[in-house]
């Protein structure tokens, strides 16, 4: 009886916290206007922002995952000099404000090295490449953390046994570790993708907010709010919240099917 009461109190706290978010989402419908919703949703500017956000997030999550797999593997399996320092550096993007990260990118591309890169390869500042770099710098640490957790869960013994059966280290990784980590890597990709879709601070600092050029969904929300277009912001917020809920649902489904 006493246990039931305690579990009830804990459950109430979860319901209470969840209610905060339910109220926040529900309040969007206070300003919901069906006609305006369709109009804004089908406008070129919104469709461009949506397309740009989806493409950038997909590319960034892909690059981030590809880079994170070997890095996570090394952090999980090996000891090397300065490992702790590097580990701390990789956590930095999770702690430092995205605006600060964006400013750091902007400052780097203002140096002579950065200017050289921009002159001889690709224009980064106030361009789509800038969005990709800003989002990549922000989410790379998260991707590494998530994939490292997956690698930590896979005992190195599997690879060891594969090697006694004739597999080289690379083949053992490719035929044993990678398939075992597959679901975790997909889940990490999805979270990185969702995080990239919602990234605002670094993106606006590096790429600016030029409509039909560098305006992503979060930037568009900010600009519409700045011009007191609440109904317009609500449409974009609903899109971004729907994407978030959809992604998290798939992430949870992947998480519930055991990795090993």
């Amino acid at each position, binding site marked *: 009886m006493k246990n039931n009461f305690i579990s009830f109190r804990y459950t109430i706290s979860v319901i209470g916290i969840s209610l905060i978010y339910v109220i926040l989402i529900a309040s969007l419908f206070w300003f919901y206007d069906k006609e305006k919703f369709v109009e804004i949703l089908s406008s070129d500017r919104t469709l461009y922002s949506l397309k740009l956000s989806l493409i950038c997030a997909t590319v960034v999550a892909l690059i981030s995952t590809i880079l994170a797999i070997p890095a996570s593997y090394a952090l999980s399996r090996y000891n090397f000099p300065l490992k702790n320092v590097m580990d701390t550096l990789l956590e930095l993007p999770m702690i430092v404000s995205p605006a600060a990260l964006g400013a750091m990118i902007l400052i780097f591309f203002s140096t002579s090295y950065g200017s050289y890169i921009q002159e001889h390869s690709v224009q980064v500042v106030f361009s789509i490449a800038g969005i990709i770099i800003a989002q990549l710098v922000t989410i790379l640490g998260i991707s590494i953390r998530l994939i490292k957790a997956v690698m930590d869960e896979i005992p190195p013994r599997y690879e060891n046994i594969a090697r*006694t059966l004739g*597999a080289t280290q690379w083949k053992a990784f490719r035929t044993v570790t990678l398939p075992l980590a597959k679901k975790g890597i997909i889940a990490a990709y999805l979270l990185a993708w969702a995080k990239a879709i919602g990234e605002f601070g670094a993106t606006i600092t590096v790429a600016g907010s030029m409509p039909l050029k560098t305006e992503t969904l979060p930037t568009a929300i900010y600009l519409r709010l700045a011009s007191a277009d609440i109904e317009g912001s609500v449409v974009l917020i609903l899109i971004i919240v729907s994407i978030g809920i959809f992604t998290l649902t798939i992430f949870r489904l992947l998480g519930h099917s055991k990795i090993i």
Partner: protein
Amino acid sequence: MITLNNIHYRAGAFSLEGINHSFEAGRFHIVLGPSGSGKSILLEIISGLLAPESGTILLDEEDITNHLPEQRNIGYLPQDNVLFPHLDVKGNIAYGLHIKRQKDDNYIKEIADKLEITHLLDRKIQKLSGGEMQRIALARSLVAGNKILLLDEPTSSLHHSLKNELCYLLGEIQEQFKLTVIMVTHDIESAFMLGNTITFLIDGKKHQVFNNLENNFVPFDGEVAKFLGIKNVFEARVKSGLQAPIIDCPALGMDLSVENNPDLEGGRRIVFGIKAEDVRIIFPERVAEYADVPNRITGVIRKIYRRAHFLTILFVPNTGKALIEVQYPLTKANKIKLVEGMALEIMLKPDRIFILH
């Protein structure tokens, strides 16, 4: 033949110290010792998963110390078998062939038939019992073409009947495929059941090698005796040595005659032992027959423990304070009713007394 030359390895406070040993090809070798004695480390060094700090490993005269595990062709079955969870049974067994881009369903079936796991081939490994997993891990190694198998405590997690079954299977497979098997274990029973040779490894040091074709195993030193659970170990002083030594044992309060130990010099302090099963109970009606037999001890039964196949009797000599452990088969227990507190006469067989070094 696998030859270990002066293998050293250190892991924290533990170290393997200068292991020199040869494992003859085509035989079943056991490395026996308590947990934490370095047995698994030794296997990992042989398989190439760990590099020794110093020393060399030869495989048929070829130095393989710096060879990668995949270059050694040595199969390794760890304690928990480690089947790949993302593959089904057939996928696991075929892994070694798959790596070499080969396919040979007939060979897989042949091995599966021999190990009686054909009916499991399409199953997921999550739905297998411990015994089935062991057979599959064994099949996987055989299919990969490993002629040398390293087994890490294969019987440790099995109950008695499964353990026996696995031992029979391992013995059969080793003979059939002419494998060189090195099995590390702390399980004395399966070690003596399977091993052609038994090497004792205690605290990272090689203590003794026993050829299991010899009938009577005698521990060489106190560490081995202790590991084997031999309780009857006492200190003594040699009274008269050489051909027919007599030793004086204060703990038992008497002199004892020792055979088969001709090199004992008078005055030397020694530690000797005798296994519980080598202590004979002299029935009251046969006391006269044993009148001239040495090493008879009268005393009292302090405690009797009933075991599965024998009685363990703790016996206190009238002349001393030490306890003597006596093992008495249950099949003979109806000959005499043994009860605690009962006066009894026992005899330590002179030819079964061993000197510990």
